[in-house]
Each structure stands twice: as C-alpha cells, then as structure tokens.
C-alpha cells in the first residue's frame, strides 16, 4: 500500500498541462505572509500558483451561458484579486485552508454571476430546454442540483483544514506531492489525511435516495 503513493498519477491532467502549483517550493503560508508585508513578487507567485487551478475549477462550475472564455477568465481573476485584497482578513486555519478560502470566494462569485445572467433577458433563449432547471453548470448537469447541494452542505460542515484537503485532491485534482508541499507534510501522510477527511465527509453526507 505504502508504495502506491509514488505511483499515483496526478489524475485529471496530463503532465504537459499541469498547473505549475508546485513549481514554487515556498509554502503558501509563507507567500501569504510575504504578500501581507507588501512584497509584489510574492503576490505574483501566489497568482501564478492558483490561477490555473481556479480557472479549470470554474470551468465546471459556471453555467454554459456564462462559459465564454473571457468571462470565465475575468471571473477567476476577479476572485483571486478580491482574495488578495482581503488577505489581511484571511485567517489561516491550518495549511491548505487558503485554497478552500479561494474556492469559497470563487463559488460566491459564480453564484452572483448566475443571478446576473438570469436577470439578462436573452438568457432565456440560450437554452429553452433547460428553462426549468435555472442555468445549470456542467457539474450540476452531471450530478444533479440536489446532489451537488448535499455535497456542498456536507463539505461546509467539516473543519476548514479537511475541506482544503478534499477540495485540493478531488476538485482541483492536485497530486499528493503537490498537496504535501501546500500543507507542509509528506505525500504518504497526505494520503491518509485525505482518506480520513473523506470518511468524515461521507458520514456528514445524507444518503441519496
């Protein structure tokens, strides 16, 4: 079992298109501290680290009507900038929690965007078939609104640190070594932590009937 960690291929993307999340070896916590003290290159490093991950994540969470490439890009940039501007307000609840925090900001932004789109009259014509489902995002279309909501609720009930682990592994598709860099641990330990967090999440999840 222990040997398997090394062999686990980072799922989702092929090496060529990997987000350069782990290229900067500095831990996110350190970068955040440097951003807070006003270092602009630390700020750039944070953006470089998280932008590709968030961009891809947003891709699945935005309704198709909003999935114009530029709009997605804008939205992700905006969320990241907002997070950086409020970085003093971010309370570090353990390693990995920054990404969970970013995801939450982006999720709120996505929801605002959906509300905005629904007020836009022409959106009705974009997809009349789906008119009764209120602009579903690909994730919603794939798993259904109710299931996604149940997942989000269960996730929100976990400690921030565990939320971070789950989000990094399942939603952002980061590899164990990448997460290990992020949380300052070893890949083996991360694997165990992710598994435990998943068991907790499973327990919090109301069974789907």
């Amino acid at each position: 079992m222990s040997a398997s960690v090394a062999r686990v291929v980072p799922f989702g993307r092929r090496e060529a298109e990997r987000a350069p999340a782990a290229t900067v070896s500095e831990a996110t916590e350190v970068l955040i501290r440097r951003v807070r003290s006003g270092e602009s290159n630390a700020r750039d490093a944070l953006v470089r680290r998280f932008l590709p991950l968030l961009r891809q994540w947003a891709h699945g969470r935005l309704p198709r009507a909003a999935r114009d490439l530029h709009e997605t890009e804008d939205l992700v940039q905006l969320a990241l900038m907002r997070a950086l501007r409020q970085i003093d307000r971010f309370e570090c609840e353990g390693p990995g929690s920054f990404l969970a925090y970013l995801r939450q900001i982006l999720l709120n932004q996505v929801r605002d965007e959906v509300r905005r789109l629904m007020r836009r009259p022409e959106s009705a014509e974009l997809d009349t078939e789906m008119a009764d489902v209120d602009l579903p995002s690909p994730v919603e279309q794939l798993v259904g609104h109710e299931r996604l909501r149940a997942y989000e609720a269960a996730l929100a009930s976990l400690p921030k640190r565990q939320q971070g682990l789950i989000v990094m592994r399942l939603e952002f598709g980061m590899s164990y070594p990448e997460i290990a860099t992020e949380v300052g641990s070893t890949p083996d330990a991360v694997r165990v932590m992710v598994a435990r967090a998943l068991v907790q999440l499973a327990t919090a999840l109301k069974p789907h009937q």
Partner: protein
Amino acid sequence: MTGENPDLEKIAAGIADDAALDWRLLARLDGDAADAGDGLRELSQLAQVFRGLQLKPERTAASKVQFRFAGLDVLEQLGRGAQGEVWRAYDPMLDQEVALKLRHVDSDTLAHHFLAEGRRLARLRHPNIVSVYGAAAQDGRVGLWTELVRGRSLAESLQADGPFAAADAVQIGIELCRGLAAVHRMGLTHGDVKAENVLRDVSGRVVLADFGAAREFERDGVFDPVSGTRQYLAPEVLAGDNPGPASDQFALGVLLYRLLTGRYPYAADDLDGLRQQQLAELRTPLRELRPDLPRALPRAIERALAPDPARRHAGVLVLLAALEAALRPWRMQALHWAGVAAVVVVVAAATVWRLLPAPALQLDSSFFRDDASHRERLADGTPIAVGDRLRLEIAAAQPTWVYVFNDDGAAEPTVLFPLPGIAPVNPLQPGTRWQLPGHDGVTALSWQVDREALTDTFVVIAADEPLARVEEGIAQWRRAAAPDSALVSRGVGRLAAAQTPAAVPGTGLTELLRQIGCDAARADLRCERFVFPHTRR
C-alpha cells in the same frame, strides 16, 4: 467510531487514489459504517465527475470528428442495432464525452414523441440510473445522448465469473431498487431490466441503462429470439398489458435469480410456454440451487416473481427493505397489531416498571438508533419508524447475563439476545460497552424495525447469574418461532404484519417475568421495559 474504521479508510483512500471502488469491502459494512459507506459510494461518483471535468479529452489528435450532431462532435461508433447506432461523442458544452444514440425516423410524430420522452428522462438524476443529457432531431434522425458509462454489464460478469455471492447480489438488488424507485416516482417505467442492461462502472456504481427512448432500438415489440429479453417479461406483459412498476419488479426478480444461479427461473422456448410456466410457478426453488443463501433472501426474491402483480412486494422500496433484512436475519418483529383485539394506544412515554439497581448489580443500558449521519440515544418513548436500526449499549460493573426480547403482546416474544452464532455471549464481561445484538464475526449487526406497528416494546433482563428459567423459555420460543417473518405487503404500499403463526402453548413473557421475580425488588436482578411509539416516515 466510523472515523476509526480501517475498512472505511481503505475505501476512502481508494477514492482519493482514483482507484476502482472496493465494492466487496463496501458490501461488508454494517451499522454506522454502512451509512458512511453509502456516503463514500456517493463521493466516489462525485469524484469521478470532478475528474471528468479536469480531464481534457484528447480529441484533436487521437479521435477525429466523424460528423456533428446537435452541437456534439461525434467521434467513434460503439455499436449498431437494426434501427440505430451508438456513438462516442464529445459535448463541448459539458466538456465531457457522452454516448449518443441515433436512429432514423420517418415520421414527425415519432420524432416528437422521442424528443418529449428524452426531455422527461433528462430531468431524472439518480446515481443508479444512466443520466440522459439531451435529445434532438436533425436531418431525419433523432438522437439522445447520455453519460458514457465505462464498465461491464452484469451479463458479462456472470459469463466471466459465474454466479454472484449473496452479499454481492443483494447489494446490486438494493441499488437497482433505489434507481427504479426514482424512475417509478416520476411516473415512468423502465421496461427492460436485464443483466445486459445493468452496468457496473469502474467506481463500483451499479447503473441501470437503456430505458424509454434511451433504449437500444432493435426491438420495438419484436422479440429477438437470442437476446433473452423475454425471460424477464412478467406474465401480465406477455398477456398484453403495458409494463408498469410491478413488471419492473418482476424483471428485477428474474435478474437476481439469474445472478445467484446463472440461469433463468423460466426458460420455455416460446412465449406461451413461458407464460404457462410463470403462472404455474414451475421453477426450481432458489433455495435448492443455492442452499447457502440466508433463508429470507429466496423468499424476498421469489415474492417479486409472483405471477399475480398484486402478490408481489408493494413496491421496489419494499423489496429493498426485504433484501436488506435478508442479510440481517436477526431483526426484531414489531407488534402484530392486526391480531390484537384491544389495541392500546400508547400516548406518552410509558415506562411500565423499572426497578432501580441495588448495589449488587450495576448496569448502564440504553438503546441507540444508528442514523445516516449519527447515533442517537433513544430515551424511553422516543418515536421510531420502519427501517430504523437499533442497538442496545450495555456496560456492567460485574459479569452479567443479559436477555433481550421484543414483546409484541403475543404468547411468544421474539428473542433478540442472546442469538446463536452471534458474539458476544453471556455473561457480558465488565470493562466494555457492549453493542447488542453484536456481530457475526465479520459485521456488526443491529435490529431493524421492519414492520409498522403502534409501538415496539423491548424487555431487557439482566442478572449476575444465568437465569435458568429464562433460558428454558428462550429454547422453547426458538423452537416455536416460525422462521417465516418476511414482510408481507397488502398491495397498497403499506406494510402489515404477517399472520401470527399458530402459537405453541407455553409460558408467555409476562408470566416468565413474574416467575423470575421482576415484580419483587431483587438486588441481583434488573428488569427494564422500553416502549417506543412508531411514527410514519
């Protein structure tokens, strides 16, 4: 508790690793762990969706776009039938590969029907039903696209590995019941439940594919003599009725019979012969072919095969309950309220009597309900419902002999503890918080409420020495207890108790309790009664 279960962590690590879900391990879970296991199953599916969205299908290089249909890039033919084809396609909106089924239509009415049904199916999202994403008509063809399930069908598994283990078949049955319940709730019928149409994907998910407009198109009422489909048809459908929820249940019964034995219950060469066999129930009993099955399992499956739809389970959810219960035969039985002349309505919590422990016997006991997400302590009088799983937690300061009964007012109470083949056994040693009924060596068991009743009454007797009189009573009641305690449906979706088996004359529980001295305040004996009223779910 569940957080420390190594099996759960192993399954969770598999999900995190993106490995195939260990569904054998999942099927072995019980109690709290089983609920967490359901959660893990769901997470495994969500994880796959998240991963699918991270994946960029290699369509520019590896797969050439053959043609376009309704905005889909159609990539590769996966199969073809008499009237249609199945293609692998890429949906740029969903950024996912999908399965596209295409067929030619020559009438607008047919195309219209097809699209209408496609849209209806697209509203149904259930983990055990293949998801339909869209339907469209274009250039004289109609197409419907669904999720692309990567896995193999149960028919292929059966052919490769032979008949299924009981726990496996039951798990498949339970998941299909859930999926069919969702279909039936929408007023739809699947109409083609068969081993070829049930896929198990790499995550271990059981998916029912191909129904309604999404069905493979080769048939259209013409029975393909080699497809084997007709073996799944209920007698009423063979007689010309439209398929309905009851015929889906019949087909599921055939499927489970086949999974367990490798053969069909009825196998006549022509439709008339088939129907005659069905009506006369000329099949080899499941128990003869698989003597290893828990006794309640063949009963649950064969009820689904009843020729008269009204005699089948009242719905797939009732079949589900029966399948679940079949793996846990030590269920408690609820009050046979139909047979009780004067029904006493229990309004409030009613502890009939409870003698406080004398210093000689120190004991702490409470009932718990294992819920989806948590464990709830049940105070006397807490409402319970059919489907609840209960346990008794007991801790004693001295070696203690414990006896637990479900008192349904009939002459013979149901013995809930001790149970043959189940650990722990009397006396319960101090220093542990025992969970009764215990475990069978592999899985932790609980008592499941499987009948509707006004109340359930439990009697717990504890003593610091074996109670010969009680053990005699248990031996006598076990002999008398008819094993046939399966769910009986009355055809309207309500569960009712089976007819009480003819009671063997003997000592009743009340008399026994009096004999051993529950009425007298004895320091070395404790008698407790817990009454839980039922609520409707």
